[in-house]
């Protein structure tokens, strides 16, 4: 008789455990509207706000006078593990007639970048930062190679080149 008892107990336990699971999913099916967990991505583009620390891509900060704080010290270039930053420097003449090293082109390879934030950490003048953009898909890989300094931009007055080491 104990066999029959065990048998029925087994079946009953199994049915109960299955019913518990079904109850849960059934409840979810009923109140899915309130608890939905997916985002309707392109629709919520306007309200979507990424945290300010989010690492999307490296940008060179320009102010309204088209000036930036990059001195061309290449600290970021050295800090980058993947070689995604290349800085080509030139020598500007200061008003006093002294030669001063300045950035000519700030080349940034987004295709190589791993968003490790090491360049931002390394920058002595806080000239670069991480932007919150994240839609980087393009049709041509070459479009991912970017020049960060805007045409005609120049180094902001008063930014002293600090020794990076």
């Amino acid at each position, binding site marked *: 008789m104990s066999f029959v008892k065990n048998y029925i107990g087994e079946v009953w336990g199994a049915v109960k455990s299955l019913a518990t699971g079904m109850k849960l*999913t059934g409840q979810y*099916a*009923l109140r*899915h509207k309130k608890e*939905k*967990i997916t985002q*309707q991505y392109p629709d919520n583009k306007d309200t979507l706000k990424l945290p300010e620390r989010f690492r999307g891509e490296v940008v060179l900060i320009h102010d309204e006078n088209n000036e930036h704080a990059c001195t061309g010290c290449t600290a970021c270039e050295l800090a980058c593990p993947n070689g995604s930053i290349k800085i080509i420097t030139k020598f500007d003449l200061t008003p006093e007639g002294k030669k001063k090293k300045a950035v000519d082109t700030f080349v940034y390879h987004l295709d190589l970048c791993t968003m490790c934030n090491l360049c931002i950490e390394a920058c002595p003048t806080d000239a670069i930062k991480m932007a919150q953009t994240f839609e980087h898909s393009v049709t041509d890989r070459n479009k991912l190679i970017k020049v960060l300094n805007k045409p005609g931009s120049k180094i902001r007055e008063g930014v002293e080149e600090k020794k990076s080491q």
Partner: protein
Amino acid sequence: MWSLQNIADKVHDWLYLTFNPTLAMLFEFVIIGALAIGLFAMLGLILIYMERKVSAWMQLRLGPNRVGPKGIFQTMADTLKLIVKEGMTPDGADKLLFHIAPFLVMIVAMVVLAPLMFAKGFQIWDINIGVFFITAVSSISVIGVLMAGWASNNKYSLLGAMRSGAQIVSYELSAGLSILAVIVLTGSLKLSDIIASQENGWWIFKGHLPVWIAFVIFIIAVTAETNRAPFDLAEAESELTAGFHTEYSGMKFALFFLAEYVNIFVVCALGATLFLGGWMPLHFGTNTQFNKVMDYIPSVVWFFGKTFFLIFVIMWFRWTFPRLRIDQLLHLEWKYLLPISMINLLLATLIAIMNWHF
């Protein structure tokens, strides 16, 4: 009152009055074929959409919502995609069997529609062994699955097909026995008789414990027979990638997919007919007031409502449970379902003989 029966009868009469009998019959065949194809296409679209929505709800998602309002044209877009896809045949495949298999599965799915009673008096063929016909014919589809798996020349497919074979043959027993529990009570295999016997209440209400047990076993067994999760071992995607239809692509895959859903519909329709009264409205014994109100709802709505409820339950299973293992699946059948349904049949017999049911 408007009903499908009147329309069917009118068309029938008109055809036989206008044309000679042979031609009229031919026209009728064409109409039946067209209706069946229409039903197929509609079922495919609705059920796949429903599956996606139900799964989305249970997973707290929205489901398809881009193509058309609430995404109702999503399945159509998918069908279009499948048509545009190239149907490939693997090099080493047994070409003949490979091409026949989807046809066979489709034919089976179509033929079992014949004895189903979709509404009051709306039936293609009121065969006197209707239930038996459905159980017999629907098990032919396993041959299609075996063919597909064998012909693909793919090891996953082969394993999937063999599993499917073992599974379908096993679960047919308990499905058959649970059907018998109702047959014992009604004393007829004819679907119209079975529905008629439930005029004063569905068997699920009248039949006490044996019918409830039979109902549960029936639902479990047909879930297994249609290769649905948690019994989807023939296409267990985490083990065999896609099981027996791994090598099928494009429209041939779509046909397998469609046949699967139509099979679900058929077994659920059978379940609704046997246990939930088919097109019969919800009647409570002699409560004429209530019964009258229920009668206002068209019979076709009752039928499809019950069927879709059962389909929902089967989908509910799929999105809740983990998959069984093949040996556990067979043990479930041979150690639990079969003995229980045999004893249950005896109980049902007792009730039938003693006339204990209402």
